[in-house]
């Protein structure tokens, strides 16, 4: 009797007995709140590659300090053809693709959640956010590891791998540059149509419709599709156009901005763990380029709010829009104003361009000391705007992309490093403007490396 009773126990409840969850801290993400929690992993989601900014000309390094750096940063500083010395696990590549993986987990999970009127808004916002995050990651990788967009050759140029599913067994291959930007554009457009119009008051790590438009504007600008860039920038500012009056900020603290400041559309910073250089005042040996620093007028508050002189009298960066000494690399309205201004100038709308520029810069000057910028021609206005763009958006990760695009249209900017008397140069449109793909990625996937010049 006992035996048969126990026998029943064994057979009946078997499947439910073994269905019990093993660990309360573990989840298999299936609900909207699970997906939101994954996208709210701001430690992972809020980072962008630092290699572009490391290769740009906003700063220079002390020779002794440069010698202590690891291979990647050491070599990237001098634009060496191979920068990794065989070492894989490069955060600048790996972390954006982890963001893509998270986004894909959400994008694959969402269709399994039944949608009704009670959760449609959240569902849309999550899908939009996942699309935005994927596009944001693809774009950031493309700025470092893919060539500059050129409509003439984009259909044959190699872009980056576009991972669109969570299947880890699928082999990675490089899509064409056209497909790369096509995917980014498509994802951002999808995000733009799904995301809420309001910039979140607290969760500034979550994207919104204005953020998607700002990102589209940034992407089109990098492609030199100025008309579309201007349109998107305009659409963004139609919804959200707030600026901070820098007169309201402290010039003594090293963290003058709050994380939820009025200009920020989407919060992001450079990767931190393997980034030993771009750490503001913590690394006094990373010094702001003296020409850049010297270009700020004395009444320009940015000189005090962006920088601080170290004990040796050299300028370092201080806290930015992310309330952190690590430079901010997200999206903010000041960038959108400058994009619209540049696109208006390029479209011949000199007045419109100058109006945008002056609206922005008025908030940067000591109250009462600002004189509006003027220009004789749209071209002159464009050049003024480009100069102010560099000053406003220094250490935001945008300079590298701007250098690539501006050299493409003949600005002919040569970068120079001086290390203990030894000079290093980066010629305009050099293939070294496209950084090498990490060796472990090449080894696993067999994808072609970016062309390297003979040393």
């Amino acid at each position: 009797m006992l035996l048969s009773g126990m026998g029943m126990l064994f057979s009946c409840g078997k499947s439910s007995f073994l269905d019990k969850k093993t660990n309360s801290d573990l989840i298999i993400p299936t609900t909207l709140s699970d997906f939101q929690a994954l996208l709210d992993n701001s430690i992972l989601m809020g980072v962008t590659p630092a290699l572009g900014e490391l290769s740009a000309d906003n700063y220079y390094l002390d020779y002794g300090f440069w010698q202590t750096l690891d291979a990647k940063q050491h070599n990237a500083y001098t634009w060496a053809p191979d920068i990794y010395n065989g070492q894989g696990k490069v955060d600048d590549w790996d972390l954006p693709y982890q963001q893509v993986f998270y986004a894909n987990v959400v994008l694959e999970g969402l269709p399994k959640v039944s949608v009704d009127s009670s959760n449609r808004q959240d569902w849309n916002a999550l899908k939009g956010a996942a699309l935005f995050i994927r596009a944001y990651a693809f774009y950031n990788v493309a700025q470092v590891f893919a060539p500059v967009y050129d409509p003439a050759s984009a259909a044959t140029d190699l872009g980056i791998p576009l991972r669109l599913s969570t299947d880890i067994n699928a082999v990675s291959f490089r899509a064409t540059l056209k497909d790369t930007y096509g995917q980014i554009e498509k994802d951002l457009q999808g995000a733009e149509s799904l995301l809420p119009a309001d910039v979140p008051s607290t969760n500034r790590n979550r994207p919104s419709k204005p953020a998607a438009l700002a990102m589209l504007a940034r992407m089109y600008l990098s492609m030199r599709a100025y008309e579309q860039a201007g349109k998107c920038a305009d659409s963004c500012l139609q919804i959200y156009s707030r600026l901070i009056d820098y007169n309201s900020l402290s010039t003594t603290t090293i963290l003058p901005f709050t994380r939820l400041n009025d200009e920020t559309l989407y919060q992001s910073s450079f990767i931190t763990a393997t980034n030993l250089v771009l750490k503001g005042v913590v690394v006094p040996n990373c010094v702001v380029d003296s020409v850049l620093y010297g270009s700020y007028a004395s009444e320009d508050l940015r000189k005090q709010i962006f920088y601080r002189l170290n004990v040796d009298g050299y300028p370092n960066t201080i806290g930015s829009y992310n309330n952190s000494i690590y430079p901010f690399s997200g999206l903010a309205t000041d960038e959108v104003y400058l994009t619209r201004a540049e696109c208006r100038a390029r479209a011949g709308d000199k007045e419109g361009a100058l109006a945008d520029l002056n609206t922005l810069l008025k908030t940067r000057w000591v109250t009462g000391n600002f004189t509006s910028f003027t220009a004789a021609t749209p071209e002159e206005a464009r050049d003024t705007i480009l100069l102010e763009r560099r000053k406003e958006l220094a250490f935001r990760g945008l300079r590298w992309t701007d250098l690539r695009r501006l050299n493409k249209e003949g600005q002919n900017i040569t970068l120079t490093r001086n290390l203990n008397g030894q000079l290093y140069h980066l010629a305009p449109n050099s293939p070294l403007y496209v950084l090498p793909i990490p060796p472990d990625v090449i080894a696993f996937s067999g994808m072609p490396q970016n062309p390297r010049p003979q040393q």
Partner: protein
Amino acid sequence: MGSKRLAVYLLLLACFQQSMSVYCQSTPSITLSERDTPLEKILIVLRDQYGYTFVGDASWTQVAKNVTIYVKNANIREVLDICFKDQPLLYKLKDNRITILSIGQTPPFVRGRLINEKREPVAGVSISIKGSGSSSAISNDNGEFSFRITHPDVDLVITSVNYVDMELPLSGPKDTVIQLKEKISELVDVSVVANNGYQEIPKDRATGSFVQVSNALINRRVSTNILDRLDGVTSSLIFNKNIVSGTNQSAITIRGRSTIAGNPDPLVVVDNFPYNGDINNINPNDVESITVLKDAAAASIWGAFSGNGVIVITTKKGKYNQAPKVSFTTSLTLGRKPDLYYQPILSSGDYIDVEDSLFKWGFYGNPQFASPSTVWSPVIETLMAQKEGLLSAGEAQARINVFRTQDTRQDLARYFYRSSANQQYALNLSGGSAKNKYYFSAGYDKNLANLVRDGYSRVTLNGNNTYSLVPQKLELSTGLFFTASTTQNNNSGSINAVYPYLKLADAQGNALSVPYQLRQSYVDTVGGRQLLDWNYRPLDELRNADNKTTLTDYRINIGIRYAIWKGLEANAYYQYGHGFSNLQNFQSQKTWYTRDQINEYTQVDSTGKLSYPVPMGGILDKRGTSYDANNVRLQLNYTRLLGRDSSHSLNAIAGAELRDVEQQVVTSRLYGYDQNRQNGLPVDYTISYPQYSSPGVSAKIDYTDWNHNLVTSDRYLSYYFNASYSYLQRYTVSASARRDESNLFGVNANQRGVPLWSAGAAWEISKENFYGLGWLPFLKFRVTDGYNGNVDRSVSAYTTASFFGSNPYGAIAASINNPPNPSLRWERINIFNVGVDFAGREHRVEGSLEYYIKTGKDLIGQSPLDPTTGSPVFTGNTANMRANGADINLRTKNIKGLFQWNTFFLFSFVRDKVTSYGQKAGSVYNYLNTGAINPLAGRPLYSVYALKWMGLDTQGNPQGLLNGHVSKDYSSIYTSSDFSNLLYKGPANPPMFGSLRNEFYRKQWGLSFNIVYKFGYYFRRSSIDYSDLFGEVSPGHRDYERRWQHPGDEQYTYVPSMVYPKNPTRDNFYSNSEPLIEKGDHVRLQDIQLSYDLQKKSFPRLPVQSVRLYLYANNIGILWKANHQGIDPDNISDIPNPRTLAMGIKLDL
């Protein structure tokens, strides 16, 4: 709650059901005091005063001698034995009648001869007369014995270590031949009945490999923990030392390592079921025997839990038809203070010299620029004061000279350490009638640890009953085990400061402050009097600590056996286990931690008013851990002898079991806790508060680390089958199969299970007719093959994520743990085992020899993936391991007879290596880092690597090799991907180990000592690391004294020169270089036991049945070691276990 009540009920039931009819015989106590008195007179006294009559033939009074006797409360036998001791007479006693026989009728000698089952003479066996200690003899080499007796109607008692004890009536005057039966079982593991947790397997049917540790061997050692008693006496089982956290090492390894990321611990089975509680809950005095299952045939019955071997603990039970037996054991173990001077740190003088140099080099900067968290040592504070003109040079020097004479370890030894004292008491009662057997016990342990204010106490209660409800048909057994313990954990043994010259107390014993976290001059002046005292005084920390863990644990067993029909038996077992441990750490406002929290969060508003976000009062942390385990087993046993002559023997079991273990961990923290109010105060966890000592830094009050609730659930459903068939007790084949299913992997039901199997064969060749080796009367061959399994709980087939608290925007955030892995499988370990068991004549030499090959397949390991997939590392069934080894187990009887000398020799050899592993780290430093597992294919999982050493240069700089050239580019050497730079020195765990135990017996005395040895392994020792020394991470290393100082020193030393500024990569290179690798080989005298046994059988006047007194000395010392650095290889960085001496007594009432 309900189960607790049930437990109490069962215990009461068990108690009341006992019919404790204590059997008692009444004989008059005789007191006599006679000197040189005629025998007849004494007999008359016995008659008149005590009621004995006496008769005898007439002549006896003429030959009887006078007697001298002084006895008090003696029994009649004792009195008569004394009276007739030297008489030419014998006596017979029947009821109250004494018959006196003269020598002519019966000889006063007994003669006889002892033989074994092979009719060979047996020497060295003691023969005595029952109830008399005076007459006894030892058999000689021909097995013959003779001794004088005082009366003819006696029982002979024959006791021997090697033969079954016998009692037989004296069969008259003629010489007696007595055949003895060998008892092999308790002595050599090849010959026992092994309990594998499901069944008992007799020696002659065993094909598998197991070790049985007998009760005597378990009791040889004195310890609180049962598993400790296996150390050094169990073949192929090793206790791992120098365990590094984060490397998944187990405390015990059986036959080498066979998993990487999975559970590395052997399965511990207590009374049929896996034990989920703390092993400390088991009182060693309640343990009858331990069986260690080593190969597939022995262990695969445990299926997916058996990959690391199985330790089966069987607790004591009563016996049917046995008079009640009460036994009491107590012991006191005293241990010396640990030797704090074992660690080779810098002397105070050298340390101050280094500080002085650093100060001169400007290392400490300027006092006016230092932040409050720039902590300076007392010496540097003195030098700074001198620099600022607050002290004269003479005053400063005088102060520093005082520091040179001080040693922190003096105060540490005085206030933080003490001699340990462990007390153990155990009382048990067992017995049984024809229908019932029972065992009850109570145990109490109280340990005062070497660390002042640390200790452990334990109470264990145990009751089990077996009822024969229908004789030979239906049996019911119940068992209840209860443990309650308290652990005091108030003393870390260290003081959070590296300076070797600190004083911790003044002459009156008042605690002194030491530099910690904040600079002393800041602490002295900060906040006026508004803040709480911010001094850190280690001695007060020790005095004010209040950190204890209380634990309760109980197990309830119920079992039913029902004999169905002719050898077929059904069993059902149920076990419920529940344990709850509650850690409570109350850090009152007197403790530095709480004062620091309150001070750091103190806010000052614009009017200067203070507020306290962390409220005044103590901080109470709690951590509750509980488990509930339900086990159900249904099993059919079939045992049958078949054939006309019963030459076929079949034995089979089949069954199914369910296991459900739920564990819960709850942590909580209360701020502002008041012990009287027993309540905390609310705090705001959401606001970031500027910290008082560093206003630029803001922090939230810690919440997530302290308030958590975790529930884990492990469920298993298993089916098993095991059968063996023997023919003529010569040929045996065995097979087993098991399938385990679990909720672990979260996959579809049909992928949840793993089938595991084993098969084996044995051949007792010595039973064959053609067998002719007379010198080797027992010889048996065994071979087995099969699979064991293992579980890794950390992996899943689905994409899993875990929440990790909130992001900076206040939203809950989660991270993905692993990508989906639909092909996840269980780890499998194949074990092939061959063995031979043998015994020489008279068991003078016996033992076993085994060889095995273990192959770990589908082991969970990490392999790299294309990072573009979004998961750079993949955890899955990617690794394989292989081990081979041999176990030798020898026992010799060197001297037999009155004085006995036996030797037990164990030798285990095991070589394991990773045969394939997906991920190879890019740089050599990954393999030098000992804090993580980095398997390299072809090497043992735990290996010791070093960087090639090219000597010191003429400036005292260490030199290595890079791309084939001598190099000082330490960073490149360290991060090189050129693996020829990486020298493999050898395994980190001993591939050869064992013990040599000698036992000596003479009469009641027993002496044994155990020598343990480990060979063939390596370790990396520490040396001077100047960066750590300068950075006050470590107090330095004595190698400092041997450092390079002048050109030419490089010919005599390999210790690099001290350079400033510090060069961490140079220190790192040296720390990982060849000269610091040492051989771990050593031989240790582990312990000595001296015992004295008295049996009532031999000493009738003993007020109890038997007494055993013993002394046990443990951790005696190293006899030989390969390294010349004074390092105990079992304690590379820790202080070795101090010597202990235990004294104990065991009484059987």
